[in-house]
């Protein structure tokens, strides 16, 4: 029997522990919020309490970010690249995942594992040769280089994630659809895809967020400010040598990361399932 005092103590301990973790995890973001609205004078006084507004908040940093930098262009570029990557990923990963889920035996299974392993080949090994590709095709400083290269990580990942989804749809259903008058392909398109819609939505979210997170390729291929995406635009354009425009920098980081974080959170469990090859259910 637990006494009520013991219970209070346990709950208190739990909240204390969780608070430490939450503060550790969220603090940089709390910091972004504060810095976004803090006056420069307040920000740059080492004796001022950095956690509070010592002077009235201001919108100057936001104004500067939105109207005097390419920030809005970065957002637009990120969106365009993201949508194009989503489209390419869907077109290639959906049929591949279905094929692997339904027909893979022997060599097909090896192929599936091979595709998974390509996810482990890091951009750090690929960006030098790929930069030559981009040069050869005249795609330097072009968003097209990112659109063509980002599927190198979205396709393997999304194929594996979707494969797991397709495997949960019973074969009976498509066999029934074939008996009910559809072709093999028709059964997939008209019956299986509608059933896999939540899986497809999941890979749309991941293809988009992963391409938004991407840093190395964007840094390698794009150096013209107007062509940058947020993940490199903010840290490279607003940090110029030693002149840190802290306010706008933090505002940019905050605006770009919050929406992705919110959407991502909803899909996190599925991310884990796909990404650990279903080793974790």
């Amino acid at each position, binding site marked *: 029997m637990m006494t009520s005092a013991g219970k209070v103590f346990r709950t208190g301990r739990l909240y204390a522990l969780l608070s430490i973790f939450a503060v550790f995890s969220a603090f940089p973001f709390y910091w972004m919020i504060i810095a976004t609205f803090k006056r420069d004078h307040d920000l740059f006084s080492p004796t001022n309490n950095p956690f509070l507004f010592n002077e009235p908040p201001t919108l100057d940093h936001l104004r500067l970010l939105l109207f005097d930098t390419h920030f809005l262009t970065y957002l637009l570029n990120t969106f365009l690249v993201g949508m194009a990557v989503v489209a390419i990923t869907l077109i290639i990963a959906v049929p591949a995942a279905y094929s692997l889920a339904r027909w893979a035996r022997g060599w097909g299974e090896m192929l599936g594992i091979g595709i998974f392993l390509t996810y482990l080949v890091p951009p750090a090994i690929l960006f030098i040769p790929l930069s030559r590709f981009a040069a050869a095709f005249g795609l330097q400083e072009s968003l097209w280089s990112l659109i063509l290269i980002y599927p190198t990580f979205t396709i393997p990942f999304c194929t594996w994630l979707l494969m797991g989804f397709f495997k949960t749809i019973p074969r*009976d259903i498509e066999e029934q*659809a074939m008996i*009910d*008058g*559809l072709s093999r392909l028709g059964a997939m398109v008209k019956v299986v895809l*509608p*059933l896999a819609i939540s899986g497809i939505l999941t890979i749309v979210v991941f293809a988009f967020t992963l391409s938004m997170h991407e840093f190395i390729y964007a840094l390698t291929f794009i150096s013209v400010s107007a062509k940058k995406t947020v993940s490199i635009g903010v840290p490279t354009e607003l940090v110029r040598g030693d002149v840190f425009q802290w306010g706008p920098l933090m505002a940019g980081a905050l605006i770009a990361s919050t929406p992705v974080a919110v959407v991502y959170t909803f899909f996190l469990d599925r991310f884990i399932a796909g990404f650990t090859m279903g080793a974790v259910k």
Partner: protein
Amino acid sequence: MARVELENISKLFGATTAVNEVNLQTIEGEFLVLLGPSGCGKTTLLRMIAGIETPSSGDIVIDGEKVTHLPPRTRNIAMVFQSYALYPHMTVFKNIAFPLRTRGVDRTAIREKVEQAAGMFGIGSLLERKPRELSGGERQRVALARAIVREPSVFLLDEPLSNLDAILRASAREELRLFQRRLGVTTVYVTHDQVEAMGLGDRIVVMNKGRVHQVGTPPEIYQWPADTFVATFVGSPPMNLIEQGDVLAGFRPETFLPAGPATENEGFVTYPFQVTWLEYLGAERLVYGDIGEKCCARHVVSRLPGNISIPIEPGKTYPFAVAKKAIRHFDRASGRLIDTGKT
């Protein structure tokens, strides 16, 4: 209505032979049951008739047309899966209408036919529900309605009753048989349950390890099993088999009864029956024991109907007799039935 002919069908999955040179013809409008233990190839055979699997060799002919390599949609067959395979994202109406929509039937005709089929199975009030909102019995009816709505020439059923509880199963069996009679569609039904097979089938095909062991009406299968496999697979408890030299003698438990004045004649064989165990089942008693037959004692079972109430105790020996005409003889090496003269 159609005939299905299977000519020398084999199916290999890698190195394993699932179906081994099966020849089979249905009779128009009959209810044919494929019976066998799990893994005997009966479901594979059904799936080949449906067109979901392609035979490794041999031909399938439906209605005189060779369909071996044609996809399912060209065969005008209907199939009910063990899981019922209802489309989870569609309403009952859309499920039933699905085979009609793929065939391009117009809207008004679809509505009419779906309502008719639903009415037939008493599910007219469920048309707007989704499959997950239905009970097991209702799901089965939806699957059947979806199967018949296209007026198929052959009706294939893969253990459709195995997901129902025992009480529902008995009434579903009866209904199924009545519908089949009424529609007169050639039906192939797969089951591992011999009671279902005996109760439903016009004819039964007994299969094991990919081969057909016997094709016959339920009485033929029960009384004249073609070999020891059929003899022991059909009937519960199975047929008693005792060694007599190169021959195995078999008799059904219900033919092995206490000896009395009526059995003391040429037509009966009497054995001393050492009873080891007794089960009281209400309507009958099952008596287990050995009969000393020269060198080798053999374990047999007797099934005593409730009206034979003589006291029997384990550990004692009683004279039991079996009619000679109830005894079947099998070749010990091949297991085949030796007796020829059918009565």
